[in-house]
């Protein structure tokens, strides 16, 4: 992981892991009394995750110490142990739009159903990726969607979401039209 050149920023990530893991050790279970009652000696339901969280704490601490040493060395003499260059933010906005689109696609699945949500997602993704030909967009999204429906609904018999309300009716009509329902 990389960070800023002379600031304490490189220490932020390991510290975040350290603190999060340390805090999580207190919240391994919602029912600590039940966990304590079930435990026999050292073995109990929370033993393993707690040990592993302490593992994160220990190694995050080692990572923090390493980062602190790097920062101090850099302050003493520039050029020594110089940090990795910050990552290039290539296509940053496009990537964040892509993330938003992918997340929206996931959350649209139960509402719009697999068929409709996938169709919309494919069209938007292709536009985002720089495909501008209406023919290419239409063919890829329609044919691709149909092939996927045949493969997963007809052949693999997967119970993919059909959507709620009017979207569900539309999906069933589409399945009937494609002879897969």
């Amino acid at each position, binding site marked *: 992981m990389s960070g800023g050149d002379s600031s304490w920023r490189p220490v932020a990530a390991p510290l975040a892991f350290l603190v999060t893991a340390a805090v999580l050790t207190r919240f391994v*279970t919602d*029912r600590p009394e039940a966990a304590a009652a079930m435990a*026999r000696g050292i073995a109990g339901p929370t033993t393993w*995750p707690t040990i592993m969280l302490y593992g*994160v704490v220990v*190694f995050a601490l*080692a990572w923090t110490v390493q980062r602190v040493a790097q920062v101090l060395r850099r302050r003493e003499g520039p050029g020594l142990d110089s940090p990795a260059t910050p990552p290039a933010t290539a296509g940053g906005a496009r990537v964040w739009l892509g993330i938003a689109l992918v997340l929206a696609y*996931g959350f649209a699945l139960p509402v719009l159903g697999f068929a409709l949500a996938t169709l919309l997602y494919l069209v938007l993704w292709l536009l985002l990726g720089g495909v501008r030909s209406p023919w290419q967009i239409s063919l890829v999204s329609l044919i691709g969607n149909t092939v996927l429906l045949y493969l997963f609904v007809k052949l693999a018999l997967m119970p993919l979401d059909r959507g709620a309300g009017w979207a569900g009716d539309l999906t069933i009509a589409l399945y009937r039209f494609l002879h897969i329902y």
Partner: protein
Amino acid sequence: MDIVVNLFHGLLTALQPSNFGTMLIGLAVGVVAGALPGISFVNAMAMALPFTYLMTPLSAMVFLGGIYAGGVFGGSISSILINIPGTPASLPSCWDGFPMTRRGEAARALTLAIAASATGGLASALLLSFAAPPFARLALAFDQPEFFAATFLGLVSIIAIAKSTPWISLVSLFCGIVVGSVGVDPLYGLPRLTFGIRSLQNGINFVVVMIGLFALGEVLEMLGQRHHLQGATNKVRMRFPSVRELWALKGAAARGTGIGCMIGMIPGAGATVGAVIAYGVEKQASPRGAEFGTGVEAGLVAPEAAKNATTGAAMIPLLTLGIPGSAATAIMLAALVLHGVTPGPLLFAAQTDMLYTIFASLLLANLCMIGAGVVVARGFASLMRVPPTILGAFIVVLSVVGAFGVRNNIADVYICLSFGVIGYLMKRYDFPSAPLVLGVILGPLAERYFMTSLANYDNNLTIFFTRPISATILGFASLFVLWALIPDIKGKVLRLLSGRTRAR
């Protein structure tokens, strides 16, 4: 001598059109199912189980054996081509296979993977044929502490894989183990790290994490790079490597095969542990170890050979002791039991013909896998000609369907998408994702063996060091860590000393 005669008779029976055809169908189903992320060959075997009612016990085992051998390899096709492991055991194939694809060497990576898998599979089928009874006795000496030690060995191999950033890799590994422990505890039934979210009580499946981190993370990164709008214009030509090229990789293949055979015999360890350890050992042993992760052929060949070498070896405890060491062999056990066949030492005396026909079929399946692998891989390789924007769009859809298909649960899709975003951020900030995935895969296994060891041996932590086999494996793990770290420590000390000398 008896074994050779029995194997010859088995080979003749296996070559009968009905048996051979059944094996080929199983092989094709396995390769295709393995290559499709989220479907997996274990699901294919489970779906095929009802069809085996209509078959004889022999045909059922030949059919399932074909799916098993083909499926274990098939997972590498998607690993190499689109960086999505079709099976957990194909994870190490992403590390050097996918960089080869990015360099335009997809066909070479695929053919090397096929050759290595076939080599490992053949060796392990021969081991099964000739050495099953003595090795089965060894496997019988394994109990929970030994299974834990074997899984622990798989986990520490991460030290060799990511020794340039050991602390970050260890944080990543432990985070993965924590993620793997989310959900209801398998022994006590108490929810852990669920924070009141009901859908987390089922736990976080490693396939979902794997698809999210690798596939979605890769696609999102690809989206940020405009130059990826055009696909490869050249057709991917599947030229099989020459004998000389393969001979140059004999060390990697032999080490991978040896490790795969050893690990495969340990019930519960399986192909994933075998492939990961083989990758770690190869990284240490290879003169190009420092370049691993950039598309080094030995880094692909070793885990591929190990992965398929576990298939025959995993059948040793199954057939000789009736102990299934993995989900795939458990399905095979179910098929045997359904047909009234009881696996165990008596099987060798009572059903010799059937057993040796199964062994011979496994040998044939690994040979025929070369052809089946090339045909399926060629079909998948044509994906490389699709413009990456379009390919990326469908990878996202396949990932979503794959995540949903694991348990037919929409919550898995949300988890997968979340890990996709995390995967992209990990890539962007150079945080290693492989240890995290390894932790999610092996963590629950390690927990189960650790906790049952404590439960079975009066909470005695020393049990892991006082039982000879467990102590030996843990000793190997310690040696492995030292072997991985000593050159680095030595280098740092030398640099420090030379720096001081110059300062004077």
